[in-house]
């Protein structure tokens, strides 16, 4: 029987949502305060959900300590206390909206989480308590 298992991690980072191809007024209308020139920060929360079948010997879908290490290596260490637009690729060219950050977290984690009895199911990224994005790969 397949089950879902979720691990949570946090990182604090700054970002600015601004598309240089649009006018100041268009950026303001689209992103509101997030377009302000010096950027601002959030305490991001990322929830990483695996789907899998518990191993009959260990009783585990996946070793959560290993999952924590992978999340830290691929996501938290590179992004924590960074200005995403300037310091974390691909956000020099990709606008760091929560939609795009969620997809980037997926892209970093998915190749590391392909196992016989477990794989990445979804990434949930909270920008604030009132706004979060779920991403589960391309397609429906």
């Amino acid at each position: 029987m397949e089950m879902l298992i979720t691990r949570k991690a946090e990182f604090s980072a700054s970002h600015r949502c601004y598309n240089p191809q649009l006018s100041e007024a268009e950026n303001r209308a689209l992103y509101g305060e997030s377009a302000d020139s010096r950027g601002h920060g959030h305490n991001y929360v990322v929830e990483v959900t695996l789907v899998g079948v518990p191993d009959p010997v260990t009783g585990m879908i996946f070793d959560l300590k290993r999952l924590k290490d992978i999340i830290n290596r691929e996501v938290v260490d590179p992004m924590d206390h960074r200005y995403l637009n300037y310091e974390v690729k691909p956000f020099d060219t990709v606008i760091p909206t929560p939609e795009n950050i969620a997809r980037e977290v997926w892209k970093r984690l998915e190749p590391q989480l392909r196992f016989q009895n477990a794989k990445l199911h979804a990434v949930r990224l909270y920008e604030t308590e009132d706004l979060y994005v779920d991403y589960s790969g391309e397609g429906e």
Partner: protein
Amino acid sequence: MTRLTRRYTFSASHRLHTAAMTDEENAELYGKCNNPFGHGHNYVLEVSVRGPVDAESGRVVSIGELDAYVKREVICRLDHKYMNHDVPDFAGLVPTSENLSVVVEKRLRRSWSDSFGTALLDAVRVQETKRNLFELRDL
């Protein structure tokens, strides 16, 4: 698949009572929620939107437009209201959170496609208290 969820709050009162049952049956069925003068909750509403991420904006939906739409269609109509008396949607309908979720979904649905194009309404979640949550999903 990308899904964006936004969280809103509103405060409202209600009384659970159906004219289809006797007073005793109502008291038995709804317990404290049947008390005659009603009572209130700080409701939390989550609205999920599913769709492609626009290449230019990096967004599934404009947060500003979503906020304005949800506030106009739902929050303004419910916040600080006695739902049984002040909200016409509940004429003849018991304002359980199941029914509230359906009313909210209908309100949001009304002119959704005119406002948001390819971004689809994916789920509506109503939290009545920290201990109960009502969810309409795969809409």
